[in-house]
């Protein structure tokens, strides 16, 4: 192999995501204004993409999109959240907390497990989003940078009680996940009213 690094340099125009991040005031954008705007269930302009860096996708129920257009209603907008769960490890009290939230506050009342060793909430309406993040934070979880052009969740062979090596791998998964977090306090400011994010490694 040659030492020539030029093969890794991408020529041409940067993806729009790079502009968006640069202009986002460290991933803050105008998400807070959108949260206060109660005439729409969605996020506007760049915020639509930006919330992905906070672990959420804006979605709508496509099956009833045409029906709602006729009803002079906007699409039934909501968000999906993917939790940051290195190695897919969740404790019983954490599970009870997310089960309660899914049951009481989401459109579908369900928790969805994914092949990325984590879970997702689906069908969360805008007025419930802050509560969702605060619920996670209260039991030491978050969804920072689990979507967008980033690493998403860090996986490992998961059962840490299987062997010392498993446990070690899990500790590395947590460290890698936290190491790759964006260096911004935006998540805590927007969703937790400024309260510090309780990272797993620091509890």
């Amino acid at each position: 192999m040659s030492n020539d690094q030029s093969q890794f340099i991408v020529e041409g125009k940067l993806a729009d995501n790079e502009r968006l991040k640069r202009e986002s005031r460290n991933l803050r954008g105008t998400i807070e204004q959108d949260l206060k705007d109660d005439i729409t269930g969605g996020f506007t302009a760049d915020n639509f993409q930006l919330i992905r860096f906070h672990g959420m996708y804006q979605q709508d129920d496509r099956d009833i999109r045409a029906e709602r257009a006729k009803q002079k209603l906007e699409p039934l907008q909501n968000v999906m959240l993917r939790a940051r769960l290195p190695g897919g490890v969740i404790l019983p009290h954490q599970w009870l907390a997310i089960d309660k939230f899914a049951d009481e506050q989401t459109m579908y009342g369900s928790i969805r497990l994914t092949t990325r060793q984590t879970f997702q909430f689906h069908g969360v309406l805008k007025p419930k989003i802050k509560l969702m993040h605060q619920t996670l934070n209260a039991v030491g979880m978050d969804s920072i940078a689990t979507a967008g052009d980033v690493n998403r969740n860090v996986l490992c062979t998961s059962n840490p009680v299987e062997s010392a090596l498993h446990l070690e791998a899990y500790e590395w998964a947590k460290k890698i996940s936290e190491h790759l977090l964006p260096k911004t306090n935006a998540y805590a400011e927007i969703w937790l009213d400024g309260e510090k994010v309780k990272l797993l490694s620091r509890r």
Partner: protein
Amino acid sequence: MSQQSNQNVAPGAIVNEQQWNAITQAIAGLNRDQLTWVSGYAAGLAAAQGGAVAPAVQTAAPAAVDAPTLTVLYGSQTGNAKALAQQFDAQAKEAGYGSKLVSMADYKPRQLKSETHVVIFASTHGEGDAPDDAIELHEFLGGKKAPKLPSTKYAVLSLGDSSYEFFCQTGKDFDERLAKAGATALVERADCDVDYEAQAQAWTASVIAALKEDFSVGTVSATVAALAPVVEASQQYTKKSPFTATLIESQKITGRDSVKDIRHIEISLEDSGITYKPGDALGVWFKNAEGLVNSFVEVLALDGNAEVTVAGESLTLAAALTSKLELTLSYPTFVKAYQEATGSESLAALIEDKAALRTYMSERQLIDIVKDHPGTLTAQQLVDALRPLTPRLYSIASSQADVEEEVHLTVAHVDYEAFGARHQGGASGFLCEYLEENGEVEVFVENNDNFRLPEDPNTPIIMVGPGTGIAPFRSFIQERDVQGAEGKNWLFFGNPNFTQDFLYQVEWQGYVKDGLVDKLTLAFSRDQEEKIYVQHRLLEHGEEVFAWLEQGAHFYVCGDATHMAKDVENALITIVQKYGNKSEADARAYIVALRKAKRYQKDVY
């Protein structure tokens, strides 16, 4: 001036000889009343041309000192009382009585003392409440400052709906209060139900006759005011002769999981020449549902093809029940007549207890009452027990400036299960379910001058319209949009859920984005633990609401009369008290002044 002297008048400088000949030819052979009418007609035309109008011609000698006056006062919520007052006024003028027609809102109560003859047309709405324009006069006559009126003669016609507990209450109050003040009734008061036309006409004729003696020719100070026959004739289609329109679209505008079924209805007025203004209502004649008609026939074991007579017209029972008679709303006159015809003992016992009957009726449609108290009666007896079908009025949700020959409505489909059967509203069931696209529906425009945009397009407006109360505000905003009106617009809207019940959501989003709607404040009552309604939002924004009022904003309320409109008014009083730094009495006076200035208008039902 007599006819003779007219013909001898030289043309002078105003008309040339040719015109003069044409005029004299045109009026030759007219009688006294006709000539009077022509002079008024011409004055109306002159007024319509604008510019300086010469004072109306004095056709009689100056009034004798104690010449009688005839003042026609109306207090009208939806315009029916006003229309009757206008008809009366026209007839009085025709009879040469020189009457004066005034809205109670524009009448100074103290003037009453100098009146010799007063004819009152008053409607009642809600729980026996006086219509907005009558509130002040109504209170004045009932209060401590009520004048003594020993030399006043009066007549009262009240309009109401006998399915309500306080039927015709406002008219009864006026009658009682005038009598107490020492005034003399010319004729007995008429309390008219929703099918008031025939009774009102007979009563009007009796008053005209009763006035004859006091207004015998010679004593009348008959200033012929500028009658406006041209203007009055502009609305060709009326309640009695409606326009047969077609349905363009009936679209549900609440989401699939909504607890409400609210429809956006579009009706074509093509080629009718009908015009309406934002604030007006559309009267809709409807047909009763086939299933409901069949239920009556079956439960009472009658023959739908039996011949019956309704108002002199002979038709089958099924046809009469479908399009001539009121089958949904329950009303006490039916219960009584039905009891008498069937001899039902259980119903007789219920009728004895008025409070119990009222509660019983309020929860039931007529079919439930019939099913509860089955009996035998003839088809004709059933028909006679039922009252005539009356059209329903819906606040118009569109502006012709925008939709031209269409008219839009926002209709709540009354549709629920009770007593083991499906129940629907008469008109809403017809509009939302039975009327098909391109199907025919008879409609007419009901003028409502008590709910109008400010004349000045720069005046800010605050609109409070939860639920279907949103309708006239869609019309207002369409109008202001087309006008390019600069005045600020603030809408308060509420309903159960944001995702399901935000009526016309995408339209409002567009208006907010375009900057036409400056503020849109929402109250979704069921999206959180505690119920939040528009009045709570008003209070939250109290400081700014008061600031807008101080800037001259007009304040409009449309929707539920029983709770919402009262809660909103109380919120308004609290706001004026708090941010205007006023006592409660002063805050109330502030609201009264707003109302008198036509800056506080309600369209509630």
